[in-house]
């Protein structure tokens, strides 16, 4: 078959790149080889536009065991326990086929975690949909939520948290980011780096079919009017097989049979074999006739580019093949010796006794092009004078309006479709500041959260990038944990455009600044570009998955008010910043202006002080103040506990709408018993932290001075009304 320009183009490779390929391998590639390049050189696998900036992120400190570059990041949580975690996008497939797209997103991220020897203990996700009135939204939401549940529930791993957001920017490009967290013994971690010559290369798991061919390339291009025709590029998941694969792998990992192991994710057999061999500075030879195939007459091209799910590649110590085979047979999984490691530093593929591909591995790994793309700086938007009409909005009407929106409504409709209690260690379920999962059999726990703030990032990417890291940090602080590390999923439009590239560069800069300041390293992550359809790009949406450690589970705390007659304090200074707030967006319809500023000194100081107060058991409940401001946060503290509050806005402050709905950062609401009041105030004063008393808890009503009084029962109704109406249920 002659390789025409059209064929090259269809593989997402431009003419310059093609010339570089010919140069690197000293020949014109055949179709299979071109397919392999297409799989390895696309944006999704190669990070060619992002690499330059990802390098600027802090990725190390004394708790980091493994930073970016492996299947997942790993941190040390003491007592020979280590936590393995990563977040990854599955945006493009989920828009084309929501159930399977989301399900295989969960499946893929779980494999990344158990590949390293860890048993997955929690799943989280961040999902973004278009405007709730967009004709596709309801179906996409339904499909994605069922897909996430369908896979995680069957695996028996609890889905413990996440976020669900709506905005018209995602009308044609939804986001599905899945995070998995696993637990491993520090001395039993497995890596993907191949070692040793002539070691058997083993294929285990499901058979290879024709699904998902070129999936990674599809995820590296914008959508157009033909998107609906791309269904065949979406993989189909089978969580049952994955559960068997998990148990079989963990069983095999008990001894020392495995030299290295890598799951077949994006770009399937191609990327797994290339990564393992090139990391070990070896060559690899594969006999494609040995690949277990689901369909007859599959070509080498299809086998190498299939993204069929639930497959793994292992390199075993010689002589361990039979014992390993027994384990996989017991679990009814395919096990096939497909090749060996070599010293050629080439990828050699054989089929029907012929060599069908031979490529230097370096051309697929270290020599992938890296781009320094043009980008544009975004200035901080001006604070335009807003009309004084904001004063005319009644507080209770504004609160009702904000709570009755898809973004601020209670998400039980979503959470209840996920098994959040299997494995018997879930201490805080979805809906709190952060999820909390106990380390099995121990007195410690991990706090987990996923956050994003696309509105802030769009308004000013650097500030937005900082803010989302701080939001994550604050959520982890608020449950009584010590923030440890993050994983990030960077969702953006087409990086070939300078505005989009600018959003990326500056968001990463913001993330980097905050992470460095807070000693909050990035240990894993993924970049998803080309979330763009017919010139409409999504708002920049970096999603941060954060992990914190609670060394004594008795120090865990929730946001629910605990008793009446306690004092309620706002910790951190309120300035009344309304630009980019829920109040402006949902009540006033104002979209412009800068996001709230982040002061990293205050962020850290306030956070560490709250941490100290929690560890001394001086507070009954803690909630960070974020989207919606003080009043929305107060509402959330009342709802589950059925305890209300009597609030009085401090004198001489700004207008009450600014005070109650402003989204100034680094603030917390705390509930303190009369008994501990003085101690808490002393600590806050000693650390020079601004705080003010705003009221006291009381029975079953939320009262605001003379303005309004609403029962917690009615608040609950308000908070749950939007989702219930949307699906016309309950």
């Amino acid at each position, binding site marked *: 078959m002659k390789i025409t320009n059209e064929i090259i183009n269809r593989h997402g490779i431009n003419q310059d790149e093609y010339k570089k390929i010919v140069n690197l391998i000293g020949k014109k590639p055949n179709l299979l080889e071109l397919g392999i390049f297409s799989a390895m050189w696309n944006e999704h696998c190669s990070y060619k536009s992002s690499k330059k900036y990802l390098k600027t992120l802090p990725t190390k400190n004394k708790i980091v065991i493994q930073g970016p570059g492996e299947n997942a990041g790993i941190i040390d949580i003491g007592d020979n326990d280590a936590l393995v975690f990563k977040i990854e996008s599955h945006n493009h497939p989920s828009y084309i086929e929501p159930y399977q797209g989301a399900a295989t997103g969960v499946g893929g991220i779980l494999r990344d975690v158990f590949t390293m020897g860890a048993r997955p203990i929690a799943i989280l996700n961040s999902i973004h949909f278009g405007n709730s009135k967009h004709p596709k939204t309801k179906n996409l939401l339904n499909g994605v939520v*069922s897909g996430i*549940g*369908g896979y995680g*529930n*069957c*695996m*028996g791993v609890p889905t413990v948290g996440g976020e669900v957001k709506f905005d018209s920017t995602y009308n044609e490009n939804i986001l599905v980011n899945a995070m998995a967290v696993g637990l491993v013994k520090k001395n039993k971690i497995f890596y993907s780096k191949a070692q040793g010559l002539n070691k058997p290369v083993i294929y285990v798991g499901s058979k290879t079919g024709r699904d998902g061919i070129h999936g990674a390339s599809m995820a590296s291009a914008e959508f157009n009017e033909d998107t609906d025709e791309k269904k065949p590029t979406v993989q189909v998941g*089978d*969580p*049952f*097989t994955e*559960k*068997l694969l998990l148990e079989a792998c963990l069983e095999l990992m008990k001894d020392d049979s495995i030299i290295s192991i890598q799951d077949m994710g994006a770009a399937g057999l191609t990327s797994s074999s290339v990564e393992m061999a090139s990391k070990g500075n070896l060559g690899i030879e594969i006999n494609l006739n040995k690949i277990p195939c689901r369909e007859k007459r599959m070509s080498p091209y299809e086998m190498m580019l299939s993204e069929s799910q639930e497959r793994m590649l292992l390199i075993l110590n010689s002589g361990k093949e039979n014992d390993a085979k027994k384990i996989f047979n017991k*679990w*009814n999984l395919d096990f096939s010796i497909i090749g060996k490691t070599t010293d050629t530093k080439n990828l050699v593929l054989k089929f029907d006794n012929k060599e069908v591909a031979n490529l230097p591995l370096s051309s697929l790994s270290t020599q992938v092009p890296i781009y320094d793309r043009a980008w544009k700086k975004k200035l901080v938007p001006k604070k335009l004078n807003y009309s004084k009409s904001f004063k005319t909005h009644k507080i209770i009407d504004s609160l009702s309006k904000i709570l009755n929106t898809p973004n601020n409504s209670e998400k*039980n409709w979503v*959470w*209840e*479709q*996920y*098994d*959040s*209690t*299997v*494995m*018997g*260690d*879930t*201490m805080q379920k979805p809906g709190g500041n952060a999820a909390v999962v*106990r380390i099995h059999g121990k007195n410690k726990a991990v706090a987990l959260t996923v956050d994003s703030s696309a509105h802030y990032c769009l308004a000013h990417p650097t500030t937005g990038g900082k803010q989302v890291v701080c939001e994550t940090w604050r959520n982890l602080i608020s449950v009584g944990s010590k923030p440890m590390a993050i994983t990030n999923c960077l969702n953006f439009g087409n990086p070939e455009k300078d505005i989009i590239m600018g959003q990326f560069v500056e968001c990463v800069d913001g993330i980097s600044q905050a992470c460095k300041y807070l000693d909050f390293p990035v240990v894993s992550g993924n970049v998803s570009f080309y979330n763009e359809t017919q010139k409409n790009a999504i708002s920049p949406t970096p999603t941060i998955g954060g992990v914190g450690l609670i060394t004594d*589970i008795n120090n865990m705390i929730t946001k629910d008010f605990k008793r009446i007659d306690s004092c309620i304090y706002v910790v951190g200074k309120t300035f009344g910043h309304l630009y980019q707030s829920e109040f402006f967006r949902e009540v006033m319809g104002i979209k412009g202006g800068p996001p709230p500023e982040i002061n990293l000194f205050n962020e850290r100081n306030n956070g560490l002080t709250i941490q100290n107060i929690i560890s001394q058991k001086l507070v009954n409940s803690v909630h960070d103040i974020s989207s919606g401001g003080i009043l929305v946060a107060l509402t959330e503290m009342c709802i589950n506990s059925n305890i209300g509050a009597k609030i009085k806005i401090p004198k001489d402050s700004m207008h009450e709408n600014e005070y109650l709905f402003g989204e100034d950062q680094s603030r917390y609401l705390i509930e303190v018993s009369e008994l501990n009041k003085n101690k808490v105030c002393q600590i806050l004063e000693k650390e020079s932290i601004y705080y003010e008393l705003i009221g006291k808890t009381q029975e079953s009503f939320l009262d605001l001075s003379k303005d309004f009084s609403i029962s917690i029962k009615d608040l609950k109704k308000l908070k749950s009304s939007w989702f219930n109406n949307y699906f016309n*249920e309950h």
Partner: protein
Amino acid sequence: MNSSVIVFPGSNCDRDIAVALKKFKFKNKMIWHNDANLPKTDLVVLPGGFSYGDYLRTGCIASKSKIIEDVIKHANKGGLVLGICNGFQILIETGLLPGTLLRNKKLKFISKNIFLKVLNVNNSFCLSYKKKNIITLPIAHNEGNYFVNDRLLKEIEDKNLVAFKYCDEKGNIDEDSNPNGSLNNIAGILSHKKNILGLMPHPERLIDPALSGQDGSLLFQSLLSSN
């Protein structure tokens, strides 16, 4: 008390139940579905999960496993059998309990804590619920909508074989407190000899004060005290 937990491909609450049994000092063994014989045991537990991926019909393929013949023998001799969630579905497919479990009324997976009323406390599984008969346990299932024909329904109700019904926090059993559409709010039933219990809620997930409740503990304490 000796117990045996059967592990099927796709079981995923097998560890949770083993942890619970250990906590209450059962001498427990994990039994692979493909084994031919049960060890000497007082209690057999069929755990929750997605045995065989729920393919064909929930519990159906597992009910044809090699070990099931021995489980049926054990049950017929009066031995105790507990089926939780998928285990309940398997018990129904084996014919050890009557009826069927349909998809939830709203066709969605439901995972949440619900209230249950314990209606029969005179059996090995529920003795300890004499002191507390409105309890909280988590459910997590897609097919928990209990259905049976009128004649059998009358029979299990008349003979007091319904162990648990979904209710509200005050114990009212009505449509509002029925999460999945089960007939008469049925959440768990007993066999005629009351040696077999199948239930959708997960007692093994609420045995620890650190997880905000321990109403599940009473079930295990009942079993121990019945011995």
